[in-house]
């Protein structure tokens, strides 16, 4: 098994296979039925499965979300897609006041198996309204699952798992990852939520990297290796549920923690991971944990500021070295 597939093609393949496996899977989103197809992740599906199952939607994000929710009550398995996470903010009422608590308030009698794909923009001057990364918001809400796949393999497996499980899922994609390839099995397969993966074993420090920080963290680990530092890179893959055990086991071994999160610093997902470790191993750490994140600032458009704004492998290298100083 060594077929390489890009992240975007893996998403397309997962959706295609889900639609083939189950006639109740429908895809809704602005322009999902066009050739460009959400950066190629839905291209061809309308032709293959028909206009009923792959539907363009008015620019009404709130209703689009609610439509998927209501449709799921009739037995459909809707997948909706937002070209940018920013656009989905119009639908937060539907998500936070309804979708997340639907099962709870029905006392477990009714479920809304909806999958919301959402893409974080980065680069080429996307600016403050086209680049927000709010996975921490979704992870703070009970009743949702949140996937932050970093590789094509995980993107495919987690998307299939999202579509065919019962708890609604927010599926956060990093646009920067789209062209990266990975070994992706051809058959439909699942990746379970709540199972982190050790991307690189190591003994000197634990580096937890979220979503699009994973490849950057791996590059940082390679650099550190040359300096004789052996970093363990943990990719949680999903934030809710969060695989706290794998993270803590790793830190128990290394006694050092760096968290790399492609999101704002304060009140973000990195804080949850640092806290989890502190709560479990706070008295065993050999160094203060470090977060590598975006600054607490909106995204500047200028190409002179973007590189400063987004953390890179050298920021991670310094952070890890800080824990070893």
């Amino acid at each position: 098994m060594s077929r390489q597939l890009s992240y975007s093609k893996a998403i397309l393949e997962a959706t295609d296979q889900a639609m083939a496996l189950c006639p109740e899977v429908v895809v809704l989103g602005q322009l999902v039925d066009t050739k460009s197809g959400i950066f190629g992740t839905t291209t061809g599906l309308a032709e293959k499965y028909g206009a009923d199952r792959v539907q363009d939607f008015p620019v009404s994000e709130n209703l689009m979300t609610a439509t998927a929710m209501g449709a799921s009550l009739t037995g459909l398995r809707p997948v909706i897609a937002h070209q940018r996470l920013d656009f989905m903010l119009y639908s937060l009422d539907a998500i936070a006041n309804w979708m997340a608590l639907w099962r709870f308030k029905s006392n477990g009698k009714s479920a809304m198996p909806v999958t919301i794909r959402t893409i974080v923009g980065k680069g080429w001057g996307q600016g403050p309204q086209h680049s927000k990364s709010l996975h921490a918001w979704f992870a703070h809400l009970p009743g949702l699952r949140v996937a932050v796949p970093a590789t094509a393999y995980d993107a495919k497996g987690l998307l299939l798992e999202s579509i065919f499980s019962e708890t609604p899922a927010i599926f956060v994609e990093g646009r920067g990852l789209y062209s990266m390839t990975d070994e992706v099995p051809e058959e439909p397969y699942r990746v379970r939520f709540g199972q982190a993966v050790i991307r690189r074993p190591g003994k000197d420090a634990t580096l937890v990297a979220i979503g699009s920080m994973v490849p950057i963290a791996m590059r940082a680990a390679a650099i550190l290796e040359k300096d004789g530092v052996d970093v363990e890179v943990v990719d949680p893959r999903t934030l809710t549920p969060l695989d706290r055990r794998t993270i803590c086991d790793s830190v128990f071994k290394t006694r050092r923690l760096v968290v790399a999160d492609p999101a704002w610093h304060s009140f973000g997902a990195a804080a949850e991971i640092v806290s989890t470790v502190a709560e479990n191993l706070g008295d065993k750490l050999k160094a203060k944990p470090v977060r590598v994140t975006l600054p607490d600032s909106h995204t500047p458009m200028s190409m002179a500021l973007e590189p400063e704004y987004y953390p890179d492998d050298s920021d991670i290298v310094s952070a890890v070295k800080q824990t070893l100083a």
Partner: protein
Amino acid sequence: MELSHRTLSRSGHYRDLSLSDLSPALSLGLFRQMLRLRRTEEALLAEYHPAEEMRCPIHFCIGQEAVPAALSTLVRTDDFLFSHHRSHGYYFAKGAPLRELFAEIYGRETGANGGRAGSQDISHSDSHFYSGAILSGAVSIAVGAAFGFKFKKSPQVAISGFGEGATDEGAFWEAMNYSGKQKLPILFVIENNRYATFSDQLKRQADDNITERVRPFGVRATKIFGNDCALAHRTLRSAIERLRSGDGPELVEAYTYRWNSHVGPEDDGANNYRGPEEMAFWKDNCPIVLLEERLREAGLLSDAEKARMESEIAAEIAANFKFAKESPFPKAADWRAMNYEDRSPMADRLLGTAARGAFDHDQAEAKLGPY
């Protein structure tokens, strides 16, 4: 004369209720449903304080019985009904078990939602009845159910019941636009009781003209005097028939009035939002009385028959209270299980596992173009 809250409250006693197209059984059935809803609400209202056992906000619907009663005879079991916060009438309409309503608002494990939801969020999924307290939110979800029915080419319809206040929300207009465009099998039922809490419709909207507003969106819209239960039945029946033949969506705006406070039994009159003449008009035109007048004229309802109904209903209510009060409270909660479903039968059936290779991290990021 143009139907509106301004004109209505000056228009005297209503005399146009006609039973011509209703069978005697149906007429009596409508009457009984209204009476049952009224008595239930009255009983809950009376019990609310001082016992303080129903510890959740309840938006009583006394005065607004006609539409729910009419709907109750028109919806099929597999139709879906979505209600706003003033939910009891719609819960009735869908034929969901009343004792589970009582137990729910008493916060008991035997409640429709095991005491998790309460009155304003109650649902009964076996009956395909759902509700929620965020204005207009359930309207949008109902659109999704209609989407599902259309997708499956099913004759089912989605019904969404709410007040004129929900039309202030932008979410509502997305629902109009999309259901009109897609011709979805959905019935929007507005009970226009003039107020959102204490705010007059004309304080929030330039005019009392919701039906005019929705029509250009492709939604067929009718407005009626909503305390005429026979008219409500006739109007809703035609609308639902059209929907089942695929000619949706439909909106019916029924002018009606709540007799009680916005929420709970306390008097909210200190907020001075409505006058006594208005209340007098609507009490004079009580939907139950209006139907009763005709039923008696037509010799369909006797004192004895009514007394029999009253006592049946009273017995039912008493039994429901008893059930609720004797039911156990929910036990110490498993919060995780209440919020997440860990079982995944469908994924188990359709998906296998597959080995994962090593990700080659040494790749450049996609250069995100401008779009």
